[in-house]
């Protein structure tokens, strides 16, 4: 940087120029940064613009109030219809394939007939479609740490590094490690998460939202419905109905088949239990406070890679010399029976 202006009696022009030179040129974001931001913002703006157009059409068409609900559904379907075939260049890499089960596929609509099988560590670009058949599932990891898991018979398009568009089936999102800005867009509503775990499933002309932790906001036009932890929301063009649900149980089990690999070498048993419990919606309790402290000092060694989560839990507890019991979503950590008898 040049020296600061210090001369007295300089002309005003000189003063302004000296100040400018002292400050130096304005910093610029690198071209790559600008391109990344532009793409993400553009994708979102484009989707929003289309949605606005469709909403205007729907509002006009709903002059007959009795037909309002039906028209919104049609408009929603039109959104899906307009988006799906829209060719665009595949954009920046926005996610990585973390887990697969069966043979999920990815397609770039700009390449005729493109329908590639996916493999772990494949990169997925914005604009690409990911599809699973009746025997496949796929887990994706986004740059901010969000995990998005696509269930069987699902189809989604990655809109950006923080949004995907679901057109069939279900997606489970875990944004624990991210800023909680992830979005699941559907023709019925957009789900905005607030640092949470949730599932969005399309069932006929309804959207079912199940919130495991945190909270999620569903937005559609001027309508907004919030779903909080332990709540299921059935959202249709006509209205929304909420009911309480358990954050654990068979309906969540499919998400556990795509749990991200856990590097257990050197991990504290307490961390392992916390992660495992989070993936299953369990709460962890300890037989006594002293045991909780002991568990945080037990360090795991070796890899549990490839073991189903329940088996990995068994191995971890057995090798640590402890017992556990699982009842109604509560994982109780217990001392060995013989230790207490001594």
């Amino acid at each position, binding site marked *: *940087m040049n020296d*600061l*202006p*210090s*001369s*007295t009696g*300089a*002309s*005003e*022009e000189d*003063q*302004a*120029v*000296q*100040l*400018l*030179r*002292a*400050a*130096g*040129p*304005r*910093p*610029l*974001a*690198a071209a790559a*940064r*600008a391109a*990344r*931001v*532009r793409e*993400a*913002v*553009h994708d*979102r*703006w*484009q989707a*929003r*613009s*289309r949605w*606005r*157009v469709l909403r205007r059409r729907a509002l006009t068409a709903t002059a007959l109030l009795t037909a309002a609900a039906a028209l919104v559904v049609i408009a929603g379907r039109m959104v899906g219809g307009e988006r799906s075939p829209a060719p665009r260049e595949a954009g920046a890499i926005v996610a990585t394939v973390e887990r697969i089960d069966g043979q999920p596929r990815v397609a770039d609509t700009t390449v005729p007939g493109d329908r590639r099988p996916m493999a772990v560590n494949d990169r997925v670009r914005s604009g690409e479609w990911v599809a699973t058949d009746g025997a496949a599932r796929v887990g994706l990891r986004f740059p901010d740490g969000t995990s998005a898991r696509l269930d069987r018979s699902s189809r989604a398009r990655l809109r950006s590094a923080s949004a995907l568009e679901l057109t069939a089936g279900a997606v489970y999102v875990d944004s624990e490690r991210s*800023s909680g*800005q992830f979005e699941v867009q559907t023709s019925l509503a957009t789900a905005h998460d607030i640092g949470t775990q949730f599932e969005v499933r399309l069932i006929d002309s309804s959207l079912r939202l199940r919130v495991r932790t945190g909270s999620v906001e569903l937005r559609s036009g001027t309508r907004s419905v919030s779903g909080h932890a332990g709540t299921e929301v059935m959202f249709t063009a006509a209205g929304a109905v909420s009911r309480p649900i358990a954050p654990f149980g068979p309906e969540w089990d499919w998400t556990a088949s795509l749990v991200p690999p856990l590097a257990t070498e050197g991990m504290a048993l307490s961390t392992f239990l916390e992660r495992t419990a989070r993936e299953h919606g369990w709460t962890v309790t300890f037989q006594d406070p002293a045991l909780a402290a002991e568990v945080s000092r037990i360090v795991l060694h070796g890899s549990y890679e490839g073991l189903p989560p329940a088996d990995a839990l068994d191995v971890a507890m057995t090798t640590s010399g402890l017992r556990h019991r699982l009842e109604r979503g509560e994982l109780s950590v217990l001392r060995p029976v013989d230790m207490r008898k001594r």
Partner: protein
Amino acid sequence: MSDLALARRLIAGEEAAFDEFFTRYFQRLYRFALARLDGNEDAAEEVVQQVMIHALDRLPTYRGEAALLTWLCALCRREVGRRRERDGQAGEISLSDDHLEMRAALDLVAILQPDGPDQALHRRELSNAVHATLDHLPATYGDVLEWKYLHGLSVDEIASRLGIGYKAAESRLSRARAAFREGFSIAAGEWPDGLASPRSRTSEGS
């Protein structure tokens, strides 16, 4: 194109409007965020992306009462605050182009010894203040000043870049200098050591 007209075209989904919006505001917002995030470029990128997405979502609520840049900066300031709070840095925000902060920066610059240990830090604050002033000037004024005084372009070359005549370029340069002095003095209240406040003078620089 006025800010309100740009907003309406963006709401209507015009691609050209998006290009203009991004070109006009991305780098300015990036610098705005960068100055408040301790120069963390990754954080600034994330914040600006969020702010632009949020702003475009909320565009129908923009009534044109404030300049679009002012509105965007307000959203950006809020987003930076949230981020710093999340990272446990609440209260440490440095808003070097906010009036009081800018005044403080300039006061510090005025009392600095040439080789003082904090010189680099305060020069950075001064730079932030000058850059923020340039970013808030009317369209092309900031660019014109940089081209002329930092990149050394001649008036002819500036005229050619802007697609206008020599006289018009000269006039724009003059207006840009006046706007810069006015903008900086309004924000800062006074000029650094050795420079009289432009308010105390009666003549306009040319």
